[in-house]
């Protein structure tokens, strides 16, 4: 795979040298391309402002971080102030305030992963790369992060590279991953595309523009399917759909209202005891112990 950081300008050339000047605008071609993309994003939503989060991912796909010119672009496109854009950009951890490395390497150090060995992986990587949390190697290859739970606890300890899963890691395996990334090799996640893409490429996908790699990789890892396979081995199944599917007829077969029309689900007063059907009512579902889910 091509490696973006090889021969690329050092991160500070993007304009974040202390005392230096930010780049303040895009050239015409870039602006036209970003504008077309932004319009496509805006069209996905009933209200344009909803496009802001994906547009910030789009900015990162261009600049490798949420740049001042990117903020200005979002503000101008959506008709809001740069302060409003910045307020949003600074709220979310995936938006970077300085140029990111080609690869974000995140070590989960939330409790479960930390106890299973995530702390040791973090210490090893931090020392090996010579950087701490949210810092980038001098060659611009790796940005190291401590990350929170990434919903892969059954694969602990977990490392994420550009938000692809590297499951069941050890200090040695994690060092091997970063060394191969720095060396420009294609590196495959445990569950994900057949190789990790760059931070900018990833950001473009997160803006909602598919990269054609959806069919790469596995559907599930070993831990994910343990229950599925155990059930099959032991002949355990859920009750069959079939009896009911074949015998039953629809509850009403005529005079069906369309959604939102008279007599549709919504054409009712707020819930009362009578709102539940008799069968349900018998179970006397208490609602006082239930909160929002």
């Amino acid at each position, binding site marked *: 795979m091509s490696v973006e950081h090889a021969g690329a300008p050092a991160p500070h050339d993007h304009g974040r040298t202390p005392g230096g000047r930010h780049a303040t605008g895009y050239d015409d071609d870039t602006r036209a391309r970003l504008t077309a993309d932004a319009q496509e994003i805006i069209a996905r939503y009933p209200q344009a*402002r909803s496009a802001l989060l994906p547009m910030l991912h789009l900015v990162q796909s261009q600049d490798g971080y949420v740049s001042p010119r990117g903020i200005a672009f979002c503000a101008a496109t959506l008709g809001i102030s740069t302060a409003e854009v910045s307020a949003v950009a600074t709220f979310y951890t995936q938006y970077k305030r300085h140029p990111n490395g080609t690869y974000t390497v995140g070590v989960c150090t939330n409790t479960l992963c930390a106890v299973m060995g995530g702390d040791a992986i973090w210490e090893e990587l931090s020392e090996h790369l010579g950087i701490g*949390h949210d810092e980038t190697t001098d060659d611009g290859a790796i940005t190291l992060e401590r990350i929170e739970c990434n919903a892969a606890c059954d694969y602990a300890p977990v490392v994420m590279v550009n938000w692809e899963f590297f499951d069941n890691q050890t200090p040695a395996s994690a060092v091997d991953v970063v060394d191969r990334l720095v060396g420009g090799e294609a590196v495959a996640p445990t569950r994900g595309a057949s190789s990790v893409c760059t931070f900018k490429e990833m950001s473009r996908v997160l803006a909602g523009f598919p990269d054609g790699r959806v069919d790469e990789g596995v559907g599930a890892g070993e831990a994910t399917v343990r229950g599925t396979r155990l059930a099959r081995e032991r002949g*355990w199944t859920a009750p069959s759909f079939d009896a009911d599917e074949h015998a039953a007829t629809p509850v009403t077969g005529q005079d069906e209202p369309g959604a939102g029309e008279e007599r549709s689900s*919504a054409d009712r007063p707020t819930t009362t005891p009578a709102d539940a059907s008799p069968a349900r009512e018998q179970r006397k579902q208490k609602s006082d112990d239930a909160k*929002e889910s």
Partner: protein
Amino acid sequence: MTTLTPVLSAHWDADRSWKLARYEADGGYRGLRRALGMAPADVVTTVKDSGLRGRGGAGFPTGMKWGFLPAPDGGPRYLVVNADESEPGTCKDIPLMMASPQELIEGVAITSYAIGCHHAFIYVRGEVLHVYRRLLEAVREAREAGYLGTDILGSGFDLEVTVHAGAGAYICGEETALLDSLEGLRGQPRLKPPFPAVAGLYARPTVVNNVESVASVPGILRGGAEWFTSMGTERSAGHGLFSLSGHVTRPGQYEAPLGITLRELLDMAGGVRAGHQLKFWTPGGSSTPIFTAEHLDVPLDYESVGKAGSMLGTRALQIFDETTSVVKAVSRWIQFYKHESCGKCTPCREGTFWLAQIMGRLEAGQGTSADIDLLLDLCDNILGRAFCALGDGATSPVTSAIQYFREEFEAGTHTPADVLFPPERSSLFDYTPRRSTQLAGVHA
């Protein structure tokens, strides 16, 4: 003995399990076809009768939530799927969407039909790139096959689905924060009421449902309410994904009827790792009070877990053995809540900040004799005093850990947690800790 009941997870190990053709071959979209032959109100009734309760943590009856929408006024109504799975220990929705995203898409179509929604949103956390790829493609495939778009399967029903990637914020799993985030704002919870059913996305009537809840709907339509209630308990009906992680021999996803026990699940998963014993566990993520070995036989349903002093939550069963320091575990969770507090409400913002400082010094063996009372007092000043449940969740591990392991907190006044419980003994691999640095740099 309770056995597993794979419904959502039945075909996760199939070849190219995420493809629409595979899903259709296994009976996919029969639920939607059935629903489209029913009146929307009858679809709502079927789901009410099934007893399905929200699988995102709080367990609110799903059909009842749909029924809260006011009568149509001619304007739009929305379904928003909460796919922002971030609760520590919770790891069920993400693998579901990676392995079999069509289950969710079919559920979205049925739910939207039932509530009169023509534009649904799936808000997935941004930190799962391949899952986002799979969702985008699942929507594309479903639209191409006529399951989404205009005049779905000739029914006259129209539905567009937008898959939206977040950008890293635990708080966006809270439904009103999620809505603000989806509107392009900072993800901060709203004061309720009004509830989303009345004024949700763009101040319009909105249903926010968890991924697993929505994905459970097609099966209910296929099998009927009685099929669903034939699993689980009377008030906690149906199947659910139980996620075992930590010091367990075979961690993973185990789909079972609600009401199964941890003892039964551990037996299926090969038990606690060899040579060790269960010390403490979470029944439903870090925001649910911890349990110990004395709770191995508590039925994992909403009522029984509640009665035993915790919450079923997301069925995120994090298993810790005797090598683990409770103080260190709680300290790290508190760092998480402090980091993720959105800052809107003072008790949560300041309270988690103070909790983190006290837990930090207890972990370092530098606590004071007044710290346990101070922790409990702080929790008392956080619980129930903020707009959302994040602060409440932060108090759960603290108060429950003090309840069951008070002596370890007392030890925190004189001995570091890493001395009492050397971390290399908890780790799943052998290593030699860097003693000089191990207490430094905890959460920048």
